[in-house]
């Protein structure tokens, strides 16, 4: 196991940990995170529009 292998591994594990934390917030499986985030962004825009038009 070379030191560059170890560094790369450590980097991958850090990325995995970041992903896991993000998924925990929304309680979604990792595979579903991008799609879920997109849906939230879209719904935020929709709700903002709805609220501004109702004023």
């Amino acid at each position, binding site marked *: *196991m070379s030191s560059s292998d170890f560094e790369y591994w450590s980097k*991958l594990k850090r990325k995995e940990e970041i*992903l896991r934390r*993000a998924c925990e917030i929304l309680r979604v499986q990792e595979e579903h995170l991008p799609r879920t985030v997109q849906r939230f962004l879209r719904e935020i825009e929709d*709700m903002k529009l709805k609220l501004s038009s109702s004023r």
Partner: protein
Amino acid sequence: MVSREYLRDYFSRNWDRYYRIGFLVDLGFKRRVCVKCGRGFWTLDDGRDVCPDQPCSPYEFIGNPPSNVRLSYVEAWRAIEDFFVRNGHESIRRYPVVSRWYPPLFFTAASIVDFYRLEDGNVVFEFPANPLIIPQFCLRFNDIPNVGVTGKHYTCFVMVGQHSLYDGREGYWKERCIELDYKMLTDVFKIRPEEIVFLEDLWVGTGAYGYSLEYFVRGLELGNAVFTEFLIGKNGPREMPYKVIDMGAGLERFPWLLHGTPTSYDVVFQPSIEKLKSICGVRVDEKLLLDYYRFAGMLNVDEVKDIGRMRSIIAERIGVSYSEFVEAVEPLQALYAVCDHTRALAFAIADGMIPSNVGGGYNLRVVLRRALSLIEGFKWGFNLIDVVEMHAKQLKPIAPELEEHLGEIQEILDVETSRFKASRDRASRVIDRLLRSGRLIDAKTLITLYESEGITPELVRMKAPNVEIPPDFYSMVTRRNEPLRREEAKQIPVEGIPATRNLFYEYPYSYEFNAKVVKVIGEYVVLDQTLFYPTAGGQMHDEGLINGERVVEVLRVGGVILHRVKNPLAFREGDSVHGVIDRGRREALRRHHTATHIVNAASRSVLGSWVWQHGAEKTPEKARLDITHYQALTDSQIRRIEEAANRIVLENHPVIIQTIPRRNAELKYGFIIYQGGAVPSREVRIVEIPGVDVEACGGLHCRSTGEVGFITIMRTKRIQDGIVRIEFCSGEAAVKYLEDRWSILRRTAEILNVPDEDVPRRVEEIFNEWKTLRKRVRDGL
């Protein structure tokens, strides 16, 4: 298999051949036939015309011991051990109470089970010394209702095993066995020869049987010397090439006889019972107890059927009212049962089995809940672990490991006690509902309540005092959970085909080979030798090409390896062929197999010694390991297991593989080698990572742990009560898995237009904003 009755009659008719012991005859022992039951027995007493067993003879030692020798439970073992060692026996340390080397049983039910091994479906005996003596702690769960009641029944007891394998040259046979047992009684325990009676009987075990002589003193059976000559094989009974002395004596009986106490529990659990009686304020009417247990020895709940009726008969005979009688004996009987059950639990947990709803764990939960119900019922202020600590202290000279495992035993008992309390609260609601509905609470309902809700009949009775509990309730529920027979392997006719040479063991790092086609059976091709590893021990098969044709599956039936090919028409018997293994797949499987051993060891070091492999599967993409553990893993435990596993990888330990005699492997490494189950052959292939893990395993492995590459745990799940599944991958598969995770993270970061590190923070902001907006929209603001 011929019936027990037939065998009894056969041996009895031929008593001169089977039961006549020259040593006894020379001493003046004569054979008589019991006028009550018709069984043969041997005695010096010319006036004796009944056999010494119950119900023909009563207990005559209670309050009236036959000797001036007074030894405690532990001292009695020391005296027996010393006698047999002086007479050429090796004293062997106890085997685990969980009989992982012999799968037809969950637990070691007799000392002889220690030496049962399976070979081609038949039982063989493997002795670590010859002759030997052993204090074997045994567990049996078929007598639970009798425990505490009869004075002699246990779920956990010590069987003193006197064993010898006689082949005409080594060991000894029945003359010497009976001579030693007789001298043990007369010389060590100072029993007068006239007091000793030998009763003719037979014993049929799970693997072998023989005729036997049980020895009694004053109505108490102390031991049973079985002369095992016949095996119960897959093709019916057959005479063994050697003979086996299987003398099993309940250690509990010896101090009981010597002290003449009302029950054996009084002397076996003496230190614990004294303390518990004082803590719980249980007062004892000694005279009543002596009278009661003189009768109780004659009774067996299974035979009497109704424990209430039995008690009222005894109460009448000793001249007290039923209620007085119950008040006097019930609390004490409950204490005895708690002492027994905690001892069974302590040994089972120390030996790596935990209470659960499956397998042997089911029996443990039954006794655990019974013990807790009794403590609750009498509102006593002690915990199970308090009693375990007393046992550990008392038994330290025989079983020092109990004290070493106290922390783990406490952890498991605490978890199970919390679960019991939760189910008790639920029980209250469920029973109220049942009572309101007016439904009859019968035996079937009680079993359903126990199995689906964990509600014990004792809990039901606290709410509904008139409910009838079948006296053998706990036997009924444990019987429903006997070991299951394993399913037969896929049936493909291979009779007459010679075993395939396993080139994958001889050349584990070769990927091409030449061979000859031996047979084509449907879509399967059999070669004289192969590098293709078949699916076995949870490791998926190799894939590749034979003469350019794709191999899609590889199986083993007996010693024959079958290659399922896409185009079987391309092969004919006698063809010379060239095989090529898919190297990438093989390497991934190899890494995942060694990684499984590493993760198993890491789990045990992080979680506790009760962790055993329950099942495993290794594919090229990932591996899964099912372990015994009492609850789902926390994030912290998962990280710690992963760290421990990767530490083992980084330390680059060698992986040493050797095939050695099973007996040597057990002596050197212990029964931990049976993580993947028992090995039904005389030789075992041992895969050892020194200082880390050692298992009997037929799989293909890396040469060192460093070759496995880093291990990442993908997910874990509690798949059933007491079993947790860990899915993981290693090496290239792990890198690919993590790169896929990174790719998901990158896509999310791009959508959010932030660096990777900021994704969680940004996701939280968005989520909060979304919740706020949704509330405003709902509120119409």
